[in-house]
């Protein structure tokens, strides 16, 4: 087994979605690591924005919350949250937003609110935070989540953050542009069919079989005709992640592949 963890592979894969000049709405965990990896590897010109109001951040340590003081010190701007949402996000200045959640369904809708009924929840989750507006208003969304029947159901229990809703042109019909572009799980990478807007497996991680993916997805998942193998992280990427980005392994604890 190669010396990298699945999380490290996910981080490396996510980082490749970013290009220099992108204005990126960063979250905590894998997204934060992916953006910082891209910044060091191939996208020195990208601009990190956190919903807490920090713009052009240069964190000197791994932020454990989106409001960490290290995001403020040395940043290019720190602005009121009213501006973050009105002038940056709603005004179309955010190129890429990263999102996770408890459930993502076949059409890229995300649930981070409740498992079960809203009024009598089986599990009460934290809720939207800024996720709903990022899903609605960022030019493009990248989702990271684990691959299981529980986390990738046919239909989410609650649509916290809109993807393509019930597919086809429903999202556009409600006046929304953008939408989820890519879903990265611990088993593979999915894109969305331009017509049906259904999640389609486009690459599969080394050592994972299509059967495994199908056995762990809540619907009869389609695979792309030219299904690829996800490129593993390079030694340089692994080194940056382990030595610079998450030296204590806070977000990438397990070293087991």
């Amino acid at each position, binding site marked *: 087994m190669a010396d990298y963890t699945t999380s490290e592979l996910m981080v490396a894969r996510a980082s490749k979605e970013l290009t220099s000049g992108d204005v990126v709405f960063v979250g*905590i*965990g894998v997204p934060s690591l992916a953006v910082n990896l891209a910044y060091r590897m191939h996208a020195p010109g990208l601009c990190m924005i956190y*919903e*807490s*109001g*920090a713009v052009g951040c240069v964190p000197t340590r791994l932020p*454990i*919350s*989106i*409001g*960490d*003081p290290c995001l*403020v*010190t*040395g940043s290019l701007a*720190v*602005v*009121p*949250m*009213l501006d973050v*949402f009105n002038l940056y*996000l*709603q005004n179309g200045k955010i190129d890429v937003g990263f999102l996770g959640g408890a459930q993502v369904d076949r059409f890229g*809708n995300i649930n981070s*609110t409740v498992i079960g009924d*809203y*009024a009598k*929840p089986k*599990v*009460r*989750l*934290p*809720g*939207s*935070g*800024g*996720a*709903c*507006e990022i899903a*609605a*208003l960022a030019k493009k969304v990248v989702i990271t989540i684990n691959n299981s029947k529980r986390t990738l159901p046919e239909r989410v229990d*609650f*649509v*916290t*953050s*809109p993807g393509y*809703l019930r597919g086809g042109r*429903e*999202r556009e019909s*409600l*006046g*929304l542009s953008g939408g989820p572009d890519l879903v990265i799980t611990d088993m593979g990478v999915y894109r969305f069919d331009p017509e049906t807007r259904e999640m389609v497996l486009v690459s599969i991680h080394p050592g994972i079989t299509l059967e495994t993916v199908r056995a762990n997805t809540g619907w009869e998942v389609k695979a792309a005709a030219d299904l690829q193998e996800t490129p593993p992280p390079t030694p340089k990427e692994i080194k940056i992640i382990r030595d610079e980005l998450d030296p204590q392994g806070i977000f990438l604890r397990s070293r087991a592949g």
Partner: protein
Amino acid sequence: MSKVMTMKEAVGRLVRDGDLVVMEGFTHLIPFAAGHEIIRQGRRDLTIARLTPDLIYDQLIAAGCARKMIFSWAGNPGVGPLHAFRRAVEKGTPRPLEIEEYTHFGMVLRFMAGASNLPFLPTRNYPGTDLTKVNPAFKQIRSPYSDESLWCVPGLRPDITIVHAQRADNEGNTQVWGLYGVQKEAAFASQRVIVTVEEIVDASVIRSDPNRTIIPGIIVSAVVHEPFGAHPSFVQGAYDRDNDFYVAWDAVSKEAGGLKAYLDEWVYGVPDRAAYIKKMGARVRELQADTQMCAPVNYGF
């Protein structure tokens, strides 16, 4: 004239049973000392509103102070769930908690609408989310300039807003740097405002840099000198976020008993924040911020 008083006086005079209370601060400057005093004084039936309830509202819920919560993200940032919040919502203990749920953008707009004395503000957000189905406060309007429909959120007007800041003068002219959050909007939306600060400074310090003032004294009811008043959250330029505390809170609060033991020791067990600091000992010094001063600017003419 001076509005300086102790935390005990300020909370005693200005926070009332049944109030709609806001203690804002997005990760930064969360007024924990004020929250602890509200618990000590046994306020009841509060409606508590915040974007991120955080540990401060998890403690108020566990202490039985809250009847209802208005919020947009109820978790322990980077760690996990808020256990007291989940017990109240899932099991109704120690008492049922009514919830009214938005998103961060929605809460920010609610405060801005309230602060602007407007019944609502519109946004392009919310098409497709189920939140508008479970919360009837979301309403749609048609733009008079096009055939577009926009979702609206209603203005929020708290009875009392409490914010923590780096410094203020004795009349409440308050300056903040680092993350702003929504404190300015929440304060202007509110009937009464308490400002708790790391440092009370002479007005000449405030007047030397008027662009830093986010809350003017004319809307402030009380000023409380409360160093370290935001711990375990942080104050840019004063002390770091106590991430270990946030991580440890998960185990502390997982069972109602553990959380009650925490309140008994660290809230009911101390008379005020000064005693809390003393009890913390060396940890206080470990969190001290290093010095990275800004380049000063010239206000002359």
